[in-house]
């Protein structure tokens, strides 16, 4: 069990990590989700012991490991860039941590071949990493992390530099490969979709702070604040600022938003509605009540095979609507967008979640 206790990191007066506390259990998959420069890598380097925190403590199974150099810690790390020892063969690359640990030769051989088998590198063992494809290079790095049987395995966007097909393949295999080791698996990613596919727990990061941590689906469905919801939404979260006066909720231009009973208990004031693209439709909803239909002007259409993302300007906001199938909607055209307000998250003026969606959003 790795515990971070109010860990902070300040480098050259710049705060990289601010007051992060979290507990990671053995045998769990923990995802660090956040945009570039949100502190994912900094946090991992602190966990590994590559950097020492400016403030706070790290406990591993109850032992204080703050400032213990990485050499004396049992961790493994895989980087986004394919990092291997270019001068050593793939076999020696995988064997490297075992050789340093002075394991007997037959045992090293067995472990290396096991790991190579799991990561389908059997035929490549005699080559050097630079003779391999990107996917194979990253598999080599993963195999090296695997043979070490480390207590803490840190994967820093390991699939980001791979092409689409390989990424899907490895993403499906990764949790399975490391599951047997009982290690604490930490996986950093910028893609909300990847977090959802991997499951486990997710911690969302924003500017060096953990905004929320919990089971991935829980964080996705009930983000505690607007920042978390934004971080966990791709394409970007759609926003609608509204004002509540008594029972009426209206947008800035006076359009009444039929939120119904959901916000009856909330005080008057300003709120922000947040909803993901698949909750905004170009087709009329079959729900009887609580649907906001408003005209919008199409700005851009992105077609991604079986579905289209339509960017529309409506109620003074730029929204993205997900439309299943490919539809010819040309920029400049006026369409009517339909929002089932039961699926909206409602955030208060402090950007905290005030009312969660009634209908569980499908992932």
């Amino acid at each position, binding site marked *: 069990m790795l515990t971070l206790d109010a860990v902070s990191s300040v480098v050259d007066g710049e705060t990289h990590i601010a007051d992060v506390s979290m507990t990671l259990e053995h045998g769990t998959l923990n995802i660090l989700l956040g945009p570039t420069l949100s502190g994912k890598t900094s946090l991992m380097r602190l966990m590994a012991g590559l950097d020492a925190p400016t403030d706070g403590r790290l406990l591993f199974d109850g032992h204080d490991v703050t400032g213990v150099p990485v050499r004396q810690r049992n961790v493994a790390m895989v*980087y986004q860039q394919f990092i291997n*020892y270019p*001068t050593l063969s793939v076999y020696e690359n995988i064997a490297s941590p075992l050789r340093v*640990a002075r394991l007997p030769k037959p045992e090293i051989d067995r472990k290396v071949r096991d790991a190579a088998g799991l990561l389908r590198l059997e035929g490549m063992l005699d080559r050097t990493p630079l003779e391999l494809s990107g996917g194979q290079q990253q598999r080599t790095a993963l195999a*090296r992390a695997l043979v070490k049987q480390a207590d803490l395995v840190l994967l820093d966007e390991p699939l980001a530099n791979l092409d689409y097909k390989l990424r899907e393949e490895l993403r499906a295999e990764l949790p399975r490969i490391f599951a047997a080791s009982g290690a604490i698996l930490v996986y950093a990613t910028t893609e909300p979709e990847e977090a959802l596919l991997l499951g486990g727990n997710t911690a969302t990061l924003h500017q060096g702070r953990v905004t929320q941590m919990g089971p991935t689906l829980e964080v996705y469905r009930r983000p505690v604040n607007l920042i978390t919801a934004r971080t966990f939404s791709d394409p970007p979260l759609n926003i609608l600022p509204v004002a509540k006066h008594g029972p009426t909720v209206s947008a800035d231009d006076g359009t009444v938003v039929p939120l119904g009973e959901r916000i009856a208990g909330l005080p008057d004031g300003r709120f922000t509605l947040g909803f993901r693209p698949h909750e905004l439709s170009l087709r009329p909803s079959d729900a009887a009540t609580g649907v906001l239909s408003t005209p919008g002007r199409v700005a851009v259409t992105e077609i991604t095979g079986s579905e289209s993302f339509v960017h529309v300007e409506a109620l003074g906001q730029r929204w993205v609507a997900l439309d299943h199938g490919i539809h010819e909607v040309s920029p400049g055209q006026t369409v009517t967008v339909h929002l089932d307000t039961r699926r909206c998250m409602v955030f208060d003026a402090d950007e905290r979640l005030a009312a969660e969606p009634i209908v569980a959003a499908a992932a």
Partner: protein
Amino acid sequence: MQQSATTMREGAAVPQRAATGGTAGAVRRRTRGGGVPVKPLILTLYLVFLLLPIYWLVSMSLKTNEEILSTFALWPQDLTFANYAEILSDPAWYMGYVNSTIYVVLNTVISVSVALPAAYAFSRYRFLGDKHLFFWLLTNRMAPPAVFALPFFQLYSSIGLFDTHIAVALAHCLFNVPLAVWILEGFMSGVPREIDETAYIDGYSFPRFFTRIFMPLIAPGIGVAAFFCFMFSWVELLLARTLTSVDAKPIAATMTRTVSASGLDWGVLAAAGALTIVPGALVIYFVRNYIAKGFALGRV
């Protein structure tokens, strides 16, 4: 690294084409412009002028003194190896080579082994005044060696290092260590820092990481740095001559002193000159693919 290697190979291929495949180029040229094949001609002229002094030296070394002074001939009329035989049998001559080799090798070993950790520090760590120190290192190369001849001479005389190989080797470090640091730093900075970290994560101690993982990675850089140290030390005359008299007298000094002393023995001098080219040519062969990057101080 890869790129510079291919560029070098292409560069080598150009004169080759001019020499062997000249006909193809000539045909193409003739069909277009009609008349003289300009490109191969220029290349041939260039190569002739480039190699002429070396050819003349080798040609002289194979002639007798009488022939050198009396007749003009493009190649030796009376071929003789006596000049080489004299150099290789007379200790006054061949000890020059031995002395030069000793201090050059000493200097190369010292320079590279001192520069390796220094370059690693400059490449990987940030410390107070690192950039200034790094630049200041190179300023040592901006003064002519003559500036340092006097202080070195006085210093070495007073501590009993005068006329020893180590004296010359250490004096040359003044120029070669900064150069080696700059070259090695360039090569080291081309190695991602993550490789260092991966090694630490794997559990390598620093010395083991440095010798097993890191040095093989920058082997071309070490080769190029060693070559540059070798080259500068081998051709440097002023300090080497000032700091030695008999026991550690370098070959270049032997050659110049022969001119002033016992009349002019043209043939033997030419043979000595030809032999002096050999070590440099040998060493440069091994690092030929990385020389360009070395001249750019590893920053290509």
